[in-house]
């Protein structure tokens, strides 16, 4: 710890701040911390207090219940698969939007954010209607023996829809800011286009790609609304962890619900930490806040 050089540092609300002539720090910081504690921190602390109250053995029993484990596996597995698909297609979409010009490019660019704007329940309904055996896509896949709706594949489809903008929107600004002189230099030094992409462009895109992947993954793990319609919700097979929390709550099994929530929260916080580190790396590499 370094000692602040100036004596003007005043500890206030536990924060040491640099001197400033602007007023209102105490008031706004006080309000921020109060509101944050009331709405977010105290309610979230409730989950940990509840799970601590369960005792280790009961907690382990609830968390390692086979149905819970199956649900957690599906939530994480499907989120991982969807994030991987989105990383590939998100890069493709970002590349095409930044580098190529085509009619309607701005319109397509605006449409990328649809999954952010569309309520998840509506997305779930729409994807179910498409992928059901009599739907537009389902009726094409059904004769081939491919079932999407009411299977784990449906969960992945829903998460691909939900996660796409995360990857596109993190990669896009970095790619747009990428200095094309570097590509020209590589080309004049005799690199083929593929070599330039692999050795010059991809290293710069790696941090935003990983960040986008992690954001899409984190969102997918907790996703509920868009999945429950298309998944069919068969226990041990296509039942996601957030749905199991809801089922436990409806059974008034608060302990069971809390145990699943605690496991998910611990993993989410870990993911949040990873995302923060990735974003820091991203900023240092590209100088862009994404």
């Amino acid at each position: 710890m370094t000692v602040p050089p100036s004596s003007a540092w005043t500890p206030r609300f536990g924060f040491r701040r640099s001197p400033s002539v602007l007023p209102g720090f105490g008031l706004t910081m006080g309000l921020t911390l109060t509101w944050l504690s009331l709405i977010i921190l105290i309610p979230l602390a409730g989950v940990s207090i509840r799970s601590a109250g369960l005792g280790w053995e009961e907690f382990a029993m609830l968390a390692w219940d086979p149905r819970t484990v199956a649900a957690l596996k599906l939530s994480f597995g499907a989120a991982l698969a969807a994030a991987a698909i989105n990383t590939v297609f998100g890069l493709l979409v970002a590349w095409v939007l930044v580098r190529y010009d085509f009619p309607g490019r701005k319109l397509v660019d605006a449409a990328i954010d649809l999954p952010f704007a569309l309520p998840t329940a509506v997305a779930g309904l729409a994807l179910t209607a498409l992928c059901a055996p009599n739907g537009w896509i389902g009726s094409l896949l059904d004769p081939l023996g491919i079932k999407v709706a009411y299977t784990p594949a449906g969960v992945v489809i829903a998460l691909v829809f939900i996660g796409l903008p995360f990857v596109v929107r993190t990669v896009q600004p970095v790619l747009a800011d990428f200095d094309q002189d570097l590509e020209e230099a590589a080309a004049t030094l005799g690199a083929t286009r593929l070599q330039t992409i692999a050795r010059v462009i991809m290293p710069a895109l790696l941090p935003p790609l990983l960040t986008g992947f992690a954001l899409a993954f984190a969102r997918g793990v907790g996703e509920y609304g868009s999945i429950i319609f298309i998944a069919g919700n068969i226990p041990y097979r296509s039942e996601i962890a957030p749905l199991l929390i809801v089922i436990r709550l409806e059974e008034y099994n608060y302990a069971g619900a809390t145990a699943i929530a605690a496991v998910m929260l611990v993993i989410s916080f870990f993911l949040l930490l990873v995302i923060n580190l990735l974003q820091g790396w991203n900023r240092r590499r590209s100088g862009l806040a994404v």
Partner: protein
Amino acid sequence: MTDVSLRTHAAFSSPVGERIRTRAALTVLALVFLALVLILPLAAVFTEALRKGAEPFFAALVEPDALEAVKLTLIVAAIAVPANLLFGLVASWAIAKFEFRGKSFLVTLIDLPFSVSPVISGLVYILLFGAQGFFGQWLAAHGIQIVFAVPGIVLATIFVTFPFVARQLIPLMEAQGTVDEEAALSLGATGFQTFRKVTLPNIKWALLYGVLLSNARAMGEFGAVSVVSGHIRGKTNTMPLHVEILYNEYNFVAAFAVASLLAFLALVTLVLKSALEWRYGGELAASGRH
């Protein structure tokens, strides 16, 4: 401008671009993917809603339970969005205009709701205010109902929309610095005058942008609200919950009719959001896209 130079590069075959055939193939692939993932689901909502013609469509929208759901959704958004607007302003003043230790940790805490499953966002309030919750007995004794009633829905909505305005404003206000405010103060303005006449005009479009996104989420939130609502028809059903109930009753046309209303809302949000980005891109720029 990078954008212009990029496009002049793309206009002719250069060592830093792909061949025209590769370009066309990648563009078509990206557009087909986007059509499948984004456009088709949207089209499905409207098609399913109008499957039996206009009459059942409108009947589903003016039915009393649907109207109650619309009303509740509007009430919840009318409370949650201004609450987050005020919090966003207060928090971003404290965070962006002052230097203090623990700042990035505080920002992470504000972002927390993004990494928590919506179902858990609802669950935390059940654990606090439910019949078996920490304050359950006290609330019951005083005849106050929070969960399975409107206050719980409002709280859960505030939780999930918590970071939207603040995270939009903080990077922008940090980039703008404190020079303008210091000038106003040295000319004799009071703190509040400075905020209203100097800071607010600088951030108004970013503020509107944050409000827009937070409103879309508030009206469309499903998971968190579903957990705390209790699904009482005509009383604690928001529009997304009403959609689910209709769907589970196999009343598909009505479900998709209400869903199409939400999808329309999402489209309006997207149009306004894009308009803001195109018109005032520079004034939102420091805040990134999300």
